[in-house]
């Protein structure tokens, strides 16, 4: 592999499954910023990989669909292999703002932290339906109780981490329980974390792609199974 200084720096990892409609715009927004963008196509059956590549992202393809947690871990592993100094996780459905990444990275260096977690409840959640707000609040309370982390938003896909921090993340929850798993691993790493206000823009599209309240039962089951078989 060519040793190239431009390869280091911040890498934005996007896990995408059948996001052909949204991914092009998301990657295009990021392309003007000084980050490397890698999209992990999680076995999509639509043109996600092609659209992402055309918009300027590096694309990794899972041969089969494994889940968002698995795709994120693949992207993180790849970014670390390519010498990333920072890894940012970003959602594929267009609910995050590319500008917020700079704030997360700035918070890492300003506060000498290894993880910067986006929080819509410290920041702004635009058009967040009341039921979704309630479920997210409940999930956050649960996470606070089980990890001991003082976070306000447990299921926010926008996070930044240093290389050292990213090396502590080993996601084994392939499905949605990975959001809690990341927080558990952050707590276990003992490294410093900060929360940074971010804006989440809800749209009909992102709400349809997002987690439904009933899925939290599945998440709890996944986390329980994890305890049985660490």
């Amino acid at each position, binding site marked *: 592999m*060519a040793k190239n200084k431009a390869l280091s720096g911040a890498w934005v990892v996007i896990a995408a499954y059948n996001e052909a409609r949204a991914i092009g715009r998301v990657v295009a927004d990021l392309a003007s910023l000084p980050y490397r963008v890698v999209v*992990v196509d999680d076995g*999509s059956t639509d043109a996600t990989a092609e659209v992402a590549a055309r918009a300027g992202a590096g694309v*990794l*393809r*899972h*041969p089969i669909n*494994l889940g968002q947690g698995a795709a994120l871990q693949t992207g993180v592993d*790849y970014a670390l292999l390519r010498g990333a100094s920072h890894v940012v996780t970003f959602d594929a459905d267009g609910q995050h703002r590319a500008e917020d990444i700079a704030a997360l990275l700035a918070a890492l260096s300003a506060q000498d932290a290894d993880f910067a977690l986006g929080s819509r409840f410290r920041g702004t959640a635009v058009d967040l339906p009341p039921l979704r707000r309630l479920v997210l609040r409940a999930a956050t309370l649960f996470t606070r109780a089980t990890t001991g982390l003082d976070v306000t938003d447990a299921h926010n896909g926008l996070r930044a981490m240093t290389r050292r921090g990213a090396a502590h993340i080993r996601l084994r929850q392939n499905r949605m329980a990975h959001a809690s798993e990341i927080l558990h691993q952050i707590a276990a790493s003992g490294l410093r974390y900060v929360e940074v206000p971010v804006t989440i823009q809800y749209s009909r599209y992102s709400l349809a792609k997002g987690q439904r309240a009933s899925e939290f039962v599945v998440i709890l089951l996944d986390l329980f199974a994890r305890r049985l*078989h660490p």
Partner: protein
Amino acid sequence: MTAQLLLSFLLGAILIYAFAERRRSPVVGVLAFVAAAAGLYFVWVPAHATALAEFAGVGRGVDLIIYIWVVISLLVLLNLHLKLRMQTEALTRLARAIAIGEALRADTNEARPDEPAIRPRPVSARTQ
């Protein structure tokens, strides 16, 4: 007598299964072994099953055996679930290795444009 023989055969199979599983999942192995052994004992000494059932407040010894059978089934189910998880993890590692390997190979080919670009064939999950 027929029922006793049938149950003995099935419970015997569970005993062998539990014994074979003890390395891979000790908890399930031991629990299933104990439950199957108890079941086997009660099948042949139903009087004790009835006594124990009365003591436990279950009613009939046969009911107790059925309950034990249910417990065994649940344990086997749990074991299968855990095994499936392990399979999924192995599959995940495999898919990840393929995805990263292909990307790194593509990077290498881009970095050396003078060499013929041998691109790995993209693995598609699309159904034909």
